[in-house]
């Protein structure tokens, strides 16, 4: 698993999974009417993008 190609494919899949997970948690909160104000919703959507990238970056170290 040392090949950079395999590693980058792994990173893409891990990012997809983490992004889907965190965005899904945001949607669950929205379903409970939490953070439905426009400003809060926009902020949380940007937070999801940033947090998923940060967690992916952490997982690169772990792979």
């Amino acid at each position, binding site marked *: 698993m040392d090949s950079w190609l395999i590693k980058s494919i792994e990173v893409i899949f891990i990012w997809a999974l983490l992004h889907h*997970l965190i965005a*899904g*948690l945001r949607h*669950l909160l929205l*379903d409970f009417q939490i953070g439905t104000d426009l400003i809060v919703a926009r902020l949380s959507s940007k937070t999801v993008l940033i947090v998923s990238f940060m967690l992916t970056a952490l997982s690169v170290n*772990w792979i």
Partner: protein
Amino acid sequence: MNFNLLKEPFGGMTQWIYQRFTALFMTIYFLAIGILIISHSTFDYSSWTYLFDSFFVKISTFIFFCLMFFHAWIGILHVTEDYIKCSSIRRSINFCFFLAIVFQLFILSYYLIG
């Protein structure tokens, strides 16, 4: 919330509820397995086999993948319904995804049981 909408076995509201409950279980499973793996400083092949020898882990992994396939199936139905207008093409694509899911269920059972 209008609970009468849940009487339809595979109606929109029922699908919505399924999507949320499968997501909830999968989140719990993902966090549990993730914490188990991260909390061990050295996680090698023997740790994997030790973890997956447990019946509880096996059965929850099986449930996880079944729910994941169901979650993905509902998601695929929604995406194709939104973007593919021709119903015959849409149904063929849905059928391909269905076959892929059944195939993966067989592979999963082979690895967990066999």
